[in-house]
């Protein structure tokens, strides 16, 4: 009888290699330059795509299996949350401002990231890299959709969620993250990876994701926290990919280092400005707070970021330029941001408010060197005006930063009493900036940033011509419902009335 020779058992690594990168081949009917036309123009040199280390060895069957398990759990909880009026378990409906901002400003960015990863998943010249990027493209579609689904039920009962699609493209504050993602997607494939894969996912995600999802948990938002838990393992994969990608670029050629460093400098500062929104949310919008923005920065910025850049030092990478300016801004930015949002709250599709006294106490304790000295007096003044029935509204036109698109609301790094404003003349036009960081980003690529769509000037052009009512219609903001102070709002009234129905017999 013939004896069968037992087949050689393949190791996990070899098997994964056969199931992924071995699928590709060297084209011969067209050149590699024709097939991958975008991999060279940024100046990054890749000598051997085979040196790419697969950060996670996930075949499609395993991917489907794990992800489906998570999806089942997620939607079971979302359905229960909807059916049981889970929104009435919130600490307070003020919390919803954070969610509204997230849906208008961040969820569309998840979708854009997915689109970008589909592009680089095609454009990179190595199968290992492509597959990793494609999986992230798929994950990002998931995140955009699960976020919309998690917030869908809030939209049925509360104002401010209903027109996130229009607001993504037309709102002044959403153009901050929109320009961030547009910037990344209009860059080449390698810069895209540094922008989204490394800077956003690796360096900044903890500052966005952990405080936001913890905020949801602390404030009884079962829908969002479920999304957070469900996305956690995806995010871990994305962080691994971001880090692998940067190491790969740095190891391939020493000439890549200065290019990568310049991108790290740029995208750190771009990301830090987007995180301004998170700082206001953490310090002001959560009725029950998790930690202060300063505390989050110390853990996720200083400690984790510091360790990362120590690790990258062996490649000749140094801490991002303007890191010190960021550190100096941390004790000020949330206050400056929330004060700005409050004075322009006729134009925000979420509510803001003057912090009640216990909140002011908390802010004093968390910001002992800055809050009482610089910001409490301003809030007290605003409180006085509101009490007199003359709440302060700033109907003046804000000057926007040409790079990050935020209004020029920040102060000089070394003087919190001086507004920080930079100007550059370029080809006969004057451009404004909120900081040295944003000015430098512009100066490195002026031809890109002169193209920026600035929402404030748009308000004064055709067809709106400065008509605030027409602008509100155009952004689908319903005056008196979506905007303004939380105190006295329909959201406040409804939440209290419904909660009364649910918890008392009157």
């Amino acid at each position, binding site marked *: 009888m013939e004896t069968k020779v037992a087949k050689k058992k393949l190791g996990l690594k070899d098997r994964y290699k056969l199931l992924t990168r071995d699928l590709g081949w060297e084209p011969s009917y067209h050149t590699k330059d024709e097939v991958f036309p975008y991999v060279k123009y940024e100046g990054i040199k890749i000598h051997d795509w085979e040196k790419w280390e697969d950060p996670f060895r996930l075949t*499609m069957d395993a991917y489907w299996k794990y992800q489906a398990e998570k999806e089942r759990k997620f939607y079971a909880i979302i359905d229960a949350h909807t059916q049981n009026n889970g929104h009435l378990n919130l600490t307070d409906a003020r919390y919803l401002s954070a969610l509204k901002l997230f849906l208008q400003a961040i969820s569309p960015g998840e979708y854009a990231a997915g689109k970008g990863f589909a592009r680089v*998943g095609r454009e990179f010249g190595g199968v290992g890299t492509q*597959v990793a990027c*494609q999986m992230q*493209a798929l994950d990002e579609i998931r995140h*955009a959709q699960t976020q919309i*689904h998690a917030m869908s039920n809030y939209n049925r009962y509360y104002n401010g969620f209903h027109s996130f699609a229009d607001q993504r493209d037309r709102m002044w504050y959403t153009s901050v993250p929109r320009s961030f993602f547009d*910037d990344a*997607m209009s860059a080449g494939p390698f810069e895209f990876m540094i922008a989204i894969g490394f800077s956003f996912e690796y360096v900044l995600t903890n500052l966005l994701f952990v405080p936001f999802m913890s905020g949801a948990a602390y404030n009884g938002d079962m829908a969002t926290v479920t999304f957070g838990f469900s996305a956690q393992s995806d995010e871990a994969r994305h962080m691994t990919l971001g880090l692998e990608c940067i190491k790969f670029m740095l190891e391939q050629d020493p000439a890549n280092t200065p290019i990568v460093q310049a991108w790290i400098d740029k995208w750190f500062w771009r990301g830090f400005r987007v995180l301004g929104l998170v700082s206001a949310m953490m310090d002001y919008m959560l009725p029950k707070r998790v930690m202060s923005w300063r505390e989050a920065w110390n853990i996720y910025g200083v400690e984790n970021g510091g360790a990362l850049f120590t690790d990258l030092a062996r490649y000749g990478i140094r801490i991002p330029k303007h890191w010190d300016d960021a550190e100096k801004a941390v004790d000020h930015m949330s206050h400056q941001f929330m004060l700005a949002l409050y004075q322009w709250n006729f134009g925000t599709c979420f509510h803001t408010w003057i912090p009640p006294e216990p909140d002011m106490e908390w802010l004093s304790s968390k910001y002992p060197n800055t809050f009482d000295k610089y910001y409490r007096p301003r809030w007290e003044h605003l409180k006085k005006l509101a009490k007199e029935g003359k709440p302060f509204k700033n109907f003046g036109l804000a000057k926007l930063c040409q790079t990050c698109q935020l209004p020029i609301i920040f102060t000089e790094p070394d003087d919190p009493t001086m507004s920080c404003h930079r100007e550059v003349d370029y080809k006969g036009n004057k451009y404004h900036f909120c900081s040295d960081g944003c000015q430098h980003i512009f100066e490195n690529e002026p031809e890109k940033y002169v193209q920026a769509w600035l929402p404030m000037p748009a308000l004064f052009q055709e067809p709106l011509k400065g008509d605030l009512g027409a602008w509100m219609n155009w952004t689908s903001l319903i005056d008196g419902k979506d905007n303004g102070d939380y105190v006295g709002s329909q959201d406040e009234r409804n939440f209290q009335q419904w909660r009364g129905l649910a918890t008392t017999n009157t």
Partner: protein
Amino acid sequence: MPIDLRMVTIEPQRQTFDHLAHRFGDKPASRYQEGSYDIQAAENLHYLPTWDPDQKLYDTSITRIVMEDWYALKDPRQFYYSTYTLTRARQQETAEANFSFVETRGLADMLPDDLRATALRVLVPLRHAAWGANQHNSFICGYGYGVTLTQACMYHAMDNLGIAQYLSRLGLLLGDAEALDTAKDAWLHDAAWQPLRRYVEDCLVLRDPMELFVAQNVALDGLLYPLVYERIVDNDLSVRGGSAVAMLTQFMSDWFDETRKWTDAVLKTAAAESESNRAVLQEWIRAWSGRAASALLPVAAFALGAQAGEALEEQVAAFKLRAEKAGVAI
């Protein structure tokens, strides 16, 4: 007796998001609708791509197909991420059970040598064609317009990768790692595979997302899947005692049955939009399906020998009927 639980009822302020109410009326929207419509940035794009300043970041003009509303290209399966992954997770369970059935019962070893050789020869090089399909669908997702179309292309791209992986596993099970090397060598050098490889590589330099959709998902898959998985594996090999092979390719047969409903719907809607769309689609389908048919002939001959031509003609006739049903006579 039915028992109604009493709950506190409160009146919602609105049924759905504005952009969905605008499209479908103020009524509760499905999760497919919420996760698909209008979630791609549409206005006030900030910067032109540095990789090609002649196009916009999201650009409808990079294809010859013109749609008034790209979201009209919807998916009849209504796949969003969740329904997509749940469906594929069930299918991979079946595939896993099939692979394990064939393996534990030693069915691969019991295959007659000529059948095993044919299966390896026809199927394993196709893993490279499936990788090509993955590249094309990633491209369409990346550069196509409107989420109803592009999300389905990302799911399709990942399916293509999954299929390439199942074909690789089939090669490892019926042969070994060397069977994959042999197949790759055939894909690169064997004259019989060159027309197909050339087809795939020509598609790799095509940058009109809708033409790529036609070349890959309509023309090539429309002939390859029924020819290889129905005609060759399910009929020919099974009849000759190779039903174990059919167990290993069940995923592909089921997948094609399901996904063709989607490709047909996209084709039908795009063709119905205008006469000029119809003419463009007709031109593309004619050209690409003609090339696909001649590229597949030498591959079919591995299994069917002299009958390959006839088998292919049957598939071409069925394909023509299918295109005509979608509104594109060829």
